[in-house]
């Protein structure tokens, strides 16, 4: 099973190392990890795609939560969330093929963002299957380079993952 886990983390140096180190140390198989700052500059958000059973998912969530710099962890169910990734694809294109590639890009609702004499760079967003399908067809032209961001995801509806400063001050329930 593939799971999408999203985590709010402190935006401070070393956090990515801690998270990445945890995955390798505990033997979790990560398909992708995407990270960027949130609307609050002190907080970053990670989207992690992980392969494994429910038990693996539970351990991963708990282990992530245990890291001091990790503020909140949520498991996003596919049916209750939207997910996208961004890919940039450099494709070898002879001038004669330009019309063909433009058509292909249109069908996938991508964009050509750079065009050279013998190549184009295509920007594509979508879920992984869409990107995969595009790459499959682009192969006929000759793919020179691909870069993918990995999945980013968000729950549908009003639910948000913002971190609210809790009323209860930390330390109050300490023995």
């Amino acid at each position, binding site marked *: 099973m593939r799971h999408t886990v999203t985590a709010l*983390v*402190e935006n401070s140096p070393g956090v990515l*190392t801690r998270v990445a180190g945890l995955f390798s140390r505990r033997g979790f198989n990560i398909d992708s990890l995407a990270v960027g700052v949130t609307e609050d500059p002190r907080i970053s958000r990670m989207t992690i795609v992980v392969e494994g059973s429910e038990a693996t998912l*539970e*351990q991963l969530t*708990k*282990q992530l939560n245990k890291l001091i710099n990790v503020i909140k962890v949520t498991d996003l169910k596919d049916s209750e969330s939207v997910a996208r990734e961004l890919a940039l694809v450099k494709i070898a294109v002879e001038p004669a093929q330009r019309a063909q590639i433009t058509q292909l890009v249109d069908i996938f609702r991508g964009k050509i963002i750079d065009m050279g004499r013998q190549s184009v760079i295509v920007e594509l967003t979508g879920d992984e299957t869409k990107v995969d399908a595009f790459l499959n067809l682009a192969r006929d032209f000759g793919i020179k380079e691909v870069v993918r961001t990995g999945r980013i995801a968000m729950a549908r509806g009003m639910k948000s993952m913002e971190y609210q400063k*809790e009323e209860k001050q930390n*330390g109050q329930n300490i*023995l």
Partner: protein
Amino acid sequence: MLGVLKIDPEGGVGVMNGAELIVKFLEQEKVEIVFGHPGGAILPLYDALRQSRIRHVLARHEQAAAHAADGYARATGKVGVCMATSGPGATNLVTGIANAYMDSIPMVIFTGQVPTDMIGTDSFQEVDITGATLPFTKHNYLVKDVNLLPRVIKEAFHIARTGRPGPVLVDLPADICLQAVGKVEYPSRVDLPGYKPTYRGHPLQVARAATAIQEAKRPVLCAGGGVISSGASEELLTLAERAAIPVTITMMGIGAFPATHPLFLGMLGLHGLPPANHAVMGADLLLAVGVRFGNRVTGKVDIFAHQAKVVHIDIDPVEIGKNVPVDIPIVGDAKLVLRDLLERVHPVEKVQRQGWFDQIERWKTSYQGSMGAGVEKKASNEKGKRLKGRWVVERLNQILGKEGIILTDVGQHQMWAAQLALRERARSFISSGGLGTMGFGLPAAIGAKLGCPDEEVVLITGDGGFQMNMQELSVAAKLGLNLKIFILNNHSLGMVRQLQEFYYNKEYYSIELSDLPDMVKLIEAFGGTGFRVDDPAEVDDAIKRALASEALTLVDFLVDPNENVYPMVPRGKGIDEMIGG
């Protein structure tokens, strides 16, 4: 370097530098003692420490400084503090930090670091110690801004001692320690949105656990290190007595429940006692409190406690369901959860579980018959037979009773010490459990003695492990610590020899220590006193003499090199399939 102790761009007067600020905060944390070894990068901190009332103990090796802080923390329940310089000083601490991490011991570790502008240049004695210790610290910090010091120090102590305790490392670049700071107050609280341990158990789960206790026919309580760190011994005892539940302990739980209590089953696990192992495998309810179900405890994990409904009380959610499936999970502090549970548990008479207690009695009797007190003595006294290590440990326990603090190193002697311990209170048995670090015993004993100067501190050690940190005898001698060191000297790496006997076809290799130094001369060279014993008839006298001694004392027991630890659970077996049980 005189005159640069305070680098103050404004040339202000009356300000402190970063190091002095740290020491001020340590005083505010009520730190009484730190263990360490100096060097260039940490000198600013040492210079500040020189002017403080905090005591510094100069370990002869940084690993020992960490173990001493660890031993101090285990004996007192306070946070142990140690420090070392950058590079080799820091890497020498690593084993000690990992050891504390595996056993959830609260420690704060300070390391010197090269100045911030040199970090990353492979400068002299530079090592990425926060990177290196990331996997086995609860948290760590590299302080790159002097203004962060108050927050970092506050958080370090807070994180180390709350929730599931553990070591926290603070790496201090030399320039940060030398930088001037104005008047700064120590923060009164921490702001850690990502760190909020749960202390109270979920009422619904607590209620379910209470019902399970009431309904159980064959319940067993299993107490671990978490009961000790929580200070929950009293609640544990009350629950066991009120609901008539026999109690087993892990090695880390020794002392959490009184060993002479009729409900006590002894330690469980791969070298556990038969009554404990059988009871867990036969139980219909296992109430685990502050245990992490390590593989030394469970044996073949898929059949561990296979008949039992499992209630697991632990402060760390990660531990619940990690190794053993749990029916009733309770995340919370052992003491608070047990208190809540006691509100709901009605008294159960022993007779209501008579069948279960009869069965347990049979296990106990059968064990006493085969392995219990006296058997080894007979063996020892047979002509030509050598003194047995197990028997020495048993005599020591009988003579010492519940007094003092027992520490061990790692190996066969450790297992006998754990199996035969007659401990009555928490923090009176100290041993390296999760990492199994040879060389832990002596420095930890120094830490324990400094933390509890009025206690008789007894170290049971092997000839192998003792040599891994014996330089620390200097510290014990210098400080006039009258530790009692009992070496079970089998002139070999006994535990490894046993493994080779069972799993490597008796092909003994690299386990002989026939060229040992004369241990009596050795202790005398360090200024202590010692004597050697090889006659079973002299054992009691030797133990009594050592315990009566006012000096640093070592007894070198020459014991049978071919003795094995029993019972033992062979690889891949359930814990009720013991050899020699």
